[in-house]
């Protein structure tokens, strides 16, 4: 196994992790501020991808597609917050799980109703297509490289937003003491709608960005949703920093496990069998990782201590 391949796989893991972060950031923010488990977050990812595909298809501009993804996911987020989610803040987790499960059903079948059963087309923009050569002679797709850059930039921007802006301060205050910031005259319901829409927009953006290299289809959000949950549980629910670290961990574990585990088993077994059992264990890898983290720290790496 050459070092070039290893570096390339690490880049792949990072790219996967960074995209997971966009999903997980919204989830963890929504949980941290409003105490809400949102299973329908994957549906917002799907909404973003479909909006991007529809608009990019109609206008021919990938950039407009991205704008549409952000706008439509944020709008969808705001609408479900106002219509449904708002009534669930003080409800037990069970109700939240159930109501957002119901939202998944409605979104998935609704999208199919609207867009039909076939996958939609969304391609990467011409300017970003094809591979580039990195130092060390590594050929790597430019678009994936851009995804890493965009993801890290958004992570940084989010950090600045939370730490340095007025709204960010209100959001952090909201995590600590809901009643208090209401007393201080912050319009709490507006703040919540805003946070929810922000989380939704990030998910929609992730859907559009990833949709360009994958397939835009109904149900695309659910596998990602579960991974994003694994990420925030590992990182500690409510912690943006934890989500970032957790996303990278999951991305790297999944990518590198899938590649190196079969190779590793191949040292002891015949190749075909090593391939099969290796990829079987690798597919459980991130769940094993999550189990280990929770046994070690029951509230995740950066979670508030219970």
């Amino acid at each position: 196994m050459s070092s070039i391949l290893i570096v390339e796989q690490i880049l792949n893991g990072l790219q996967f992790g960074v995209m997971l972060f966009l999903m997980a950031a919204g989830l963890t923010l929504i949980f941290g501020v409003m105490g809400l488990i949102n299973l329908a977050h994957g549906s917002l990812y799907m909404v973003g991808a479909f909006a991007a595909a529809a608009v990019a298809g109609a206008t021919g501009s990938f950039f407009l597609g991205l704008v549409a993804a952000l706008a439509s996911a944020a709008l969808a987020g705001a609408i479900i917050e106002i219509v449904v989610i708002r009534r669930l803040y003080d409800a037990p987790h069970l109700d939240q799980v159930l109501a957002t499960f119901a939202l998944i059903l409605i979104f998935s079948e609704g999208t199919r109703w609207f867009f039909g059963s076939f996958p939609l087309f969304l391609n990467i923009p011409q300017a970003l297509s094809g591979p580039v050569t990195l130092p060390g002679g590594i050929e790597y797709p430019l678009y994936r490289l851009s995804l890493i850059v965009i993801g890290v930039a958004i992570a940084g921007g989010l950090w600045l937003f939370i730490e340095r802006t007025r709204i960010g301060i209100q959001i952090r205050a909201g995590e600590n003491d809901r009643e208090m910031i209401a007393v201080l005259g912050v319009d709490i319901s507006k703040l919540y709608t805003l946070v929810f829409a922000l989380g939704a927009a990030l998910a929609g953006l992730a859907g559009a960005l990833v949709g360009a290299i994958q397939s835009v289809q109904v149900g695309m959000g659910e596998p990602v949703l579960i991974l994003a949950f694994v990420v925030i549980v590992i990182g500690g629910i409510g912690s943006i920093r934890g989500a970032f670290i957790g996303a990278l961990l999951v991305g790297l574990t999944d990518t590198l496990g899938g590649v190196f585990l079969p190779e590793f088993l191949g040292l002891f077994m015949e190749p075909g069998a090593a391939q099969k059992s290796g990829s079987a264990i690798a597919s459980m890898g991130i769940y094993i990782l999550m189990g280990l983290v929770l046994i070690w720290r029951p509230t995740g790496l950066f979670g508030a201590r219970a």
Partner: protein
Amino acid sequence: MKKLLLAASAASLLATSAFAEVKVGMITTLSGGGAGLGLDVRDGFLLAIEQSGRDDIEVVIEDDQRKPDIAVQLSDKMIQSERVDVMTGIIWSNLAMAVVPAAVNQNVFYLSPNAGPSALAGKGCHQNYFNVAWQNDNLHEAAGAYANDAGHKKSFILAPNYPAGTDALTGYKRFFDGDLAGEIYTQLGQTDYAAELAQIRASDADSVFFFLPGGMGISFLKQYADSGIDLPVVGPAFSFDQGILQAVGDAALGVVNTSQWNKDIDNPTNKAFVDSFKAEYGRLPSLYASQGFDTANLLLSALEKADPSDANAFREALRAAEFDSTRGDFAFGPNHHPVQTIYAREVIKEGDVFTNKIIGTALEAHSDAYAAECKM
């Protein structure tokens, strides 16, 4: 279109229709991720029934949601409650394995418009089971044969880690004479193939074979095109079908895939089928639509000769397969699976629409590897 659907749904509601003499139960996937395939099979099937002008055939259609337990439940319903004579429609091998053995043992005929698991072609074959599409390995075997013709010597092959994936790689290897540069089982439902692409790039392969149905194939092809790897790609028709080609786009152009059908196969039945399908539904027919259409025509041809209540005569009539297939010559082998020609197709662009063009023949009068095991 509307009229047809209405007739179908009305049929599924009115369990007892006075004039219906033959009752057909169609269990297929009409909702959720794989609905596109089921819709095509259904539309193709209903088109043929409608064109036949027979009003004594009642088609009861149910959606299996691609869930095996639902499919089994619907099959019970078809047999116990609707008392159908013939069943058809299942898209997925795992659903077929759940439904077919029990159904055919209850004296119902089953005509498979898509799935052809090896268990049903070999030891588990049954006199009431007819496959009108292919045995699962067929298109992969053809891909291996085509790779030989194209002069490929070293292939990198990959498929999802599930039984149909294993069958695909086995089928390819059965006919491919060259060496393997690598063999990878990906996760089922995987959407990101960056890691696999890196391995392909690092290998010394001269060609790539993949079997990744549905969304997996779309993702793979888009990422493959963007990776800068320029090895020739071969695959079975499933990832290059009319329904999903538009979602793959330019990334699929030039890729060779194997199929027993294409819209440019030159025979009157096929021409008429393509034109009438376009007229009826406003889209190009897919492989699955052609299989649904052929399945219905096989059924109609047998009904001309015998009534399902006379099981032996009806079975003989089916086995004769005297109908005009959209793919030209069609016959059943001893295990009731097709003996047919499989073509190599290339993805092209016609105007704004991506579609396939036949570029050659991969295997002629091809049967399958399991027929010998079948004791019928």
